[in-house]
């Protein structure tokens, strides 16, 4: 069997070996429901789309994805199993990829379990299901971006709490970079090109378009490049400080 697949399977099973996975999924579903129906005013909007659902995803991920990613390496460091893993005949990238894919698929499972919202909107009206599928894919890609950031920060520490907080902080920076409030603030000081560059680094900017069903290649490339960058950073961090 492919070694990435072996790592992937072990990781994914280990999520479900503890109640953590189920707790996570329940909290995720509750939060999405609260945001969609209470704060997003899904029913009051009277529109057959899932804008009210998707627009909160970046914020929900900001808090919840670090909870998935924090244990990825910090736990291995803390228990010492990293020494076992790194002395098995696998390449570093295989371990990184296997772990990332497991976390990403887990996030995907949580996301897929929000399907009742999709059923609801189809029951109530006639939404454009193409847009919804695109938005789901975009949301999953964004989750991957958050996960890759969290994974890298988890690789840098043996403390899961630190891994959680730093991942949330860095994620917050990546969200804020596209927030109009922040952009307006720097617009006064910095030239327009730099403001654009900052905005183009943001999850919000790229997710906005996808969540409306517009799949622009640039947005897809953005998420893939961002994820790849942080995964490589993870491998680098691991290689640099294996023992501590």
């Amino acid at each position, binding site marked *: 069997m492919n070694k990435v697949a*072996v790592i992937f399977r072990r990781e994914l099973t280990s999520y479900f070996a503890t109640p953590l996975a189920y707790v996570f999924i329940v909290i995720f579903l509750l939060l999405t429901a609260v945001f969609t129906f209470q704060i997003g005013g899904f029913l009051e909007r009277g529109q057959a789309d899932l804008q009210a659902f998707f627009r909160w995803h970046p914020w929900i991920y900001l808090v919840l994805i670090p909870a998935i990613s924090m244990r990825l390496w910090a736990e291995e460091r803390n228990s010492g199993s990293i*020494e076992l893993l790194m002395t098995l005949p696998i390449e570093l990238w295989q371990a990184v990829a296997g772990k990332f894919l497991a976390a990403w698929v887990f996030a995907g499972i949580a996301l897929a379990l929000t399907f009742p919202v999709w059923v609801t909107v189809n029951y109530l009206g006639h939404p454009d299901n193409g847009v919804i599928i695109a938005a789901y894919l975009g949301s999953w890609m964004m989750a991957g971006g958050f996960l890759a950031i969290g994974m890298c920060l988890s690789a840098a520490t043996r403390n899961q709490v630190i891994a959680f907080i730093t991942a949330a902080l860095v994620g917050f920076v990546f969200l804020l970079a596209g927030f109009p409030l922040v952009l307006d603030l720097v617009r006064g000081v910095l030239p327009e090109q730099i403001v654009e560059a900052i905005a183009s680094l943001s999850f919000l900017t790229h997710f906005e378009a996808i969540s409306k069903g517009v799949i622009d290649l640039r947005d897809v490339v953005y998420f893939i490049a961002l994820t790849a960058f942080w995964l490589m950073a993870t491998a680098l961090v691991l290689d640099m400080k294996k023992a501590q």
Partner: protein
Amino acid sequence: MITTSHLSKNYGGKLAVNDLSFSVAPGEVLGFLGANGAGKSTTMRMIAGFLSPSAGSVTVCGHDVERAPVAAKSRMGYLPEGAPSYGEMTVTEFIDFVSDIRALRGARRRERRVFVIERLELGPVQGQVIETLSKGFRRRVGLAQALIHDPEVLILDEPTDGLDPNQKHEVRRLINELSREKLVIVSTHILEEVHEVCTRAIIIAAGRIVADESPAQLEARSRYHRAVSMRFLHATELAVAAAQLAMLDVIDSVETDPRTMRLTAFPKAGAAALPAVGAMVVKADWDVPELHLESGRLDEVFRALTQGAGPVPP
């Protein structure tokens, strides 16, 4: 075959391992000894490919651990210090995971699994989650993981730590058995283990090799090597014996311990003390219930070598 050449490891300006060069051949069981912090684990970790050396290289079965890590690692079984594993997995799940990574398939996979579970007596806990197991069982799970692919080279960092005397004996027997066709490196700070399992011992202190020889040679360095020790029943006889034995030609010095009523007669270099001492005991008709010829004390040699104290002729 394992060869290390000028192996060094630098931790933020501190040399943990300093220019180690040695090679080990199949059939040898190398005991790696040293005080805590002497660089044992660091060296084992570099051999196993977990840490990169700051300088020098390690070759395992012809593969450079840094340049061809996967090839080298697939020939090694490694038990890290403290036997870490994945606590949330059951014993069988964990062994299956390692078998998958090591690409064991079909009949051989089943055969090896049965072998390690039987040999390490893991049968009763097969289905149990590892974190609920006792320290001894966890250590054996770690050993099972290291043995599953029947590796040519075994690197065991403190394999008997935390085991009870029966389990220790069992693990030592296993190492002896395996050593016939394998190359084994064991780190330990239990000196009796060196006697029981090792064909060769390397003692390191402050990251450097201070001795590299067989356990018997190490013992020969001891002051107690070929010394005669005996126990007396009467204090008066002990005092008389100490004075008389000290005058023998072959005896260098005599030490007594009035508390335990023991006397140790140290021979002059190259001399045999036993015949003369024995003859005197018989002649003087002392009450001596015990008399031993000492082979040497490893703990004393170890202390002298690692603390740089006391006379240790090579």
